[in-house]
């Protein structure tokens, strides 16, 4: 599903694959499948994880160290609590443009030197921008951790924003927008869906930025963004791997300690007003098959221990699409054959309001109207009869197993801590979340379906295929194949 392709952007390409997943036939569901448990990946045990050490520097920088001794590697990440949702009208995309500029040199380093220096020691560096945060990371042999921290601290405060580099990088970002959104019908649908479902909240803006805003962006916009948000008191440093926590704290103190805290801009809530009726948006784009995504406003997870609805919504998404024979696939694809692919996802780990999605591609000879009708029947069934104990058990089994599997990735472990803190949740929220998910009851799942999956919270987006030159292209391919 393209939903998140457009919400998380990176400066490097990400599309190489060799051994393909045979799940490619689940065109829409491929990424969403199993996402529910993946989110709630947690360190081992139910108590706070003893292998995570934390410290707050005097300038407000939060430092977390997660020890994993399995391989001589270290991952270092710096997360800033600033992303697309902090942008204002007319300068959308600036968070992401600045992220690109962070590789274009500082007072001390030349453009490109950051990546080159990390690569020279065999490290990988990259970054990502989302609506809620912006993150930078290096993965390297543990002996090179100091290098990563020195460079990362340097660009937190010494960025050199150069006119020429900026002009060139803007062109790169516009190519990125073309590649990720303009030429991807599903990403396009998601962009327009977000713009329709939010009237006031900045989630209405695409993280990559509107093309017109990119074309008119000024160096001063990037400068202002950097000066506003890139401060130690707005950042989280996470180091994971085969490292000594005290040594990491010393390095953090040495390189980040001297950076002064700064007052941050006032964050206004920009609360989305209550929706007053169903909204529909149609996107015409070059494609062959229509598709439909339904997005319902839903709560975010704000209080890990006090909230319960986000957990029930998460389990609900799992019941609908958490495994290959989950409800939507089983009923709409395998049995009724009204859809070719289905997916469901709940996104409640956000700084802003949450959202619950269901998406469909109609089967041959079926229309988006047929699919919408079938979904409404499923929804009615869910609200009337609830979910079975078996379904609940399967989804929870996956939550528990995912918690264990998640410990196999050093990067993933660092990322989880950084993300939770970026969202204002406790660093070990993932552990509590796993526990709370296991406590969700069938009644709670039924209750949130009834409360949130209602038309007054719904925006429906439809991709209406426009055949342009595609017929000719497909013919070309198939002809060549049969030759």
């Amino acid at each position, binding site marked *: 599903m393209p939903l998140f392709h457009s*919400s998380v952007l990176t400066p490097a390409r990400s599309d190489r694959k060799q051994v393909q997943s045979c799940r490619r036939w689940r065109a829409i569901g491929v990424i969403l499948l199993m996402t529910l448990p*993946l989110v709630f990946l947690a360190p081992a045990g139910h108590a706070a994880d003893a292998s995570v050490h934390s410290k707050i520097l005097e300038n407000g920088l939060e430092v977390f160290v997660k020890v994993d001794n399995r391989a001589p590697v270290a991952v270092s990440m710096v997360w800033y609590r600033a992303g697309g949702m902090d942008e204002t009208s007319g300068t959308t995309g600036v968070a992401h443009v600045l992220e690109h500029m962070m590789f274009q040199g500082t007072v001390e380093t030349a453009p490109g030197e950051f990546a080159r220096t990390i690569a020279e020691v065999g490290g990988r560096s990259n970054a990502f921008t989302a609506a809620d945060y912006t993150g930078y990371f290096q993965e390297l042999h543990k002996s090179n951790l100091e290098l990563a921290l020195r460079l990362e601290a340097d660009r937190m405060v010494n960025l050199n924003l150069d006119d020429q580099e900026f002009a060139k990088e803007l062109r790169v970002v516009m190519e990125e927008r073309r590649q990720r959104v303009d030429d991807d019908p599903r990403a396009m649908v998601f962009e327009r869906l977000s713009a329709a479902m939010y009237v006031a909240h900045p989630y209405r803006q695409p993280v990559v930025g509107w093309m017109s805003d990119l074309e008119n962006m000024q160096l001063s916009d990037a400068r202002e963004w950097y000066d506003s948000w890139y401060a130690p008191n707005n950042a989280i440093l996470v180091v994971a791997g085969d490292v000594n926590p005290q040594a990491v704290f010393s390095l953090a103190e040495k390189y980040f300690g001297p950076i002064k805290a700064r007052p941050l801009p006032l964050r206004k809530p920009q609360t989305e007003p209550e929706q007053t009726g169903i909204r529909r948006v149609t996107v015409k784009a070059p494609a062959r098959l229509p598709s439909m995504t339904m997005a319902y406003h839903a709560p975010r997870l704000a209080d890990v221990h006090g909230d319960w609805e986000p957990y029930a919504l998460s389990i609900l998404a799992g019941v609908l699409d958490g495994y290959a024979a989950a409800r939507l696939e089983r009923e709409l694809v395998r049995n009724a054959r009204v859809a070719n692919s289905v997916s469901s996802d709940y996104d409640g780990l956000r700084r802003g309001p949450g959202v619950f999605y269901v998406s469909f591609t109609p089967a041959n000879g079926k229309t988006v109207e047929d699919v919408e009708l079938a979904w409404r029947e499923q929804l009615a069934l869910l609200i009337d009869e609830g979910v079975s104990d078996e379904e609940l058990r399967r989804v929870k089994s996956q939550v528990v197993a995912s918690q264990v599997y998640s410990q*196999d990735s050093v990067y993933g472990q660092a990322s989880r801590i950084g993300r939770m803190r970026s969202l204002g949740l406790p660093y070990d929220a993932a552990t509590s979340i796993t526990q709370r998910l296991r406590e969700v009851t069938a009644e709670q799942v039924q209750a949130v379906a009834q409360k949130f999956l209602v038309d007054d919270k719904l925006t429906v987006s439809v991709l209406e295929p426009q055949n342009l030159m595609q017929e000719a292209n497909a013919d070309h391919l198939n002809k*060549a194949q049969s030759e």
Partner: protein
Amino acid sequence: MSLALDFPVNISDAHPIRRKATGKAILVPLLAGMLFALSLPALAALEIESWTTENGARVLYLESRVLPIVDVSIEFPAGSGRDQPGMSGLASMTLAMMRKGTRSLDENQISEQLAGIGARLSSTFNPDRSGFALRTLSDADIRTQALEVLREIIVSPSFPEEILERDKVRNIAFIEESQTRPNVIVAQTFQQQLYGSHPYGSIGSGNPETITALTRDDLLDFHRRFFVSDEAVVVIVGDVSRDEAQWIARDLTNGLPKASSTLSDIPEVPELAESIEVVIPHSASQAHIRLGMPGVRRGDPDYFALWLAAQILGGGGMTSMLNDELREKRGLTYSAYSYFSPYLRRGPFVISLQTRKDQAWEALDVALATLEKLVDEGPTEAQLQAAKRYVIGGFALNIDSNAELASYLAMIGFYQLPLDYIDRFPEEIDKVTMQQIRDALGRRLAPSRTVTVVVGPAAKP
């Protein structure tokens, strides 16, 4: 919930299979006390064990007791290179249908049983290899249940007719949809032009005509021929003992037949007779460009030299020549890269990039000039050393998880590489000389005969 957590994992550019190289042909005993030009990070040697089951399956096993997880994969020489002429999609469809019903489980039961114990079953598929990878908790009860499902899928798939017909219709719709996308058009056209009637020219997912023609008998026959015990490669990594691993491998392959005759070899990939350039107009805002030629095979004597060359030309780290010329100097693209995909026979060497349509020819010229410069002049000493440092210094990152190790072992097992292949990889890279690279580039990557596909602009001006 949001996938932002998972997404950046992809951009670390670390698909382990991609990074693998084979040194079969140039493995020379390492001299004791050999000094490396670069500081090689010390990695503990991996104690991979290997044996053959009674019915001929090759097993690779690596114990890892830190996490209560076990990864088990089983692969067969049943990739798209085994599609029969005019039957593209046969291999992938067979693999996909194997998990859609067995003698005792229907498709829903398969999914439900795995979900109920939190096990994950994924498929692996490329021109050579086809199989399944199972990740499960190592608890004996859970593990046994998960493996039993996998065993059923491998040994007694039923290929239910009715589901096959349903999924054929679905797949055709997805294929038709994908063939509207410029990235798919460019990749498939490039593959067809590069390989022609060679088996590697078969498009793995098939096309609407070939999928329509597939029958249950075709799939049964394909399964019978290629999913045989003496061609199977089983990999077990994680929290099980050697004894348990032995039992797992035996049980998994026990019901498989042996091959009735030796499998035929996939033929050598012929040289391109001439340069081919295809331009396909498309309504997208960007042009998708792919340029390349037949590359290397597993065990190729030039492998390490060319692998380093591809790293210098268009590899990871955001520091490659293509990235410099196309992105950093000219702002022409968001992504430009090059790579080799080594298979049993020569897989493709690919340069790939996207740029706004009106810049397509300029970008293509720059890419070609960059390749020519590398081939004519060779890399600089600084480039070579930087590439070596990148590969060697970061090697531990490729094997820092059970998932990556399991994936490596599957490759080593399938291509019958030495068991110390991973341990020796950095040494082999370190040994490559400037002369070897120049020599290999001149013989193998001279851009005089290439396939170029441009999807987007109407025609070359």
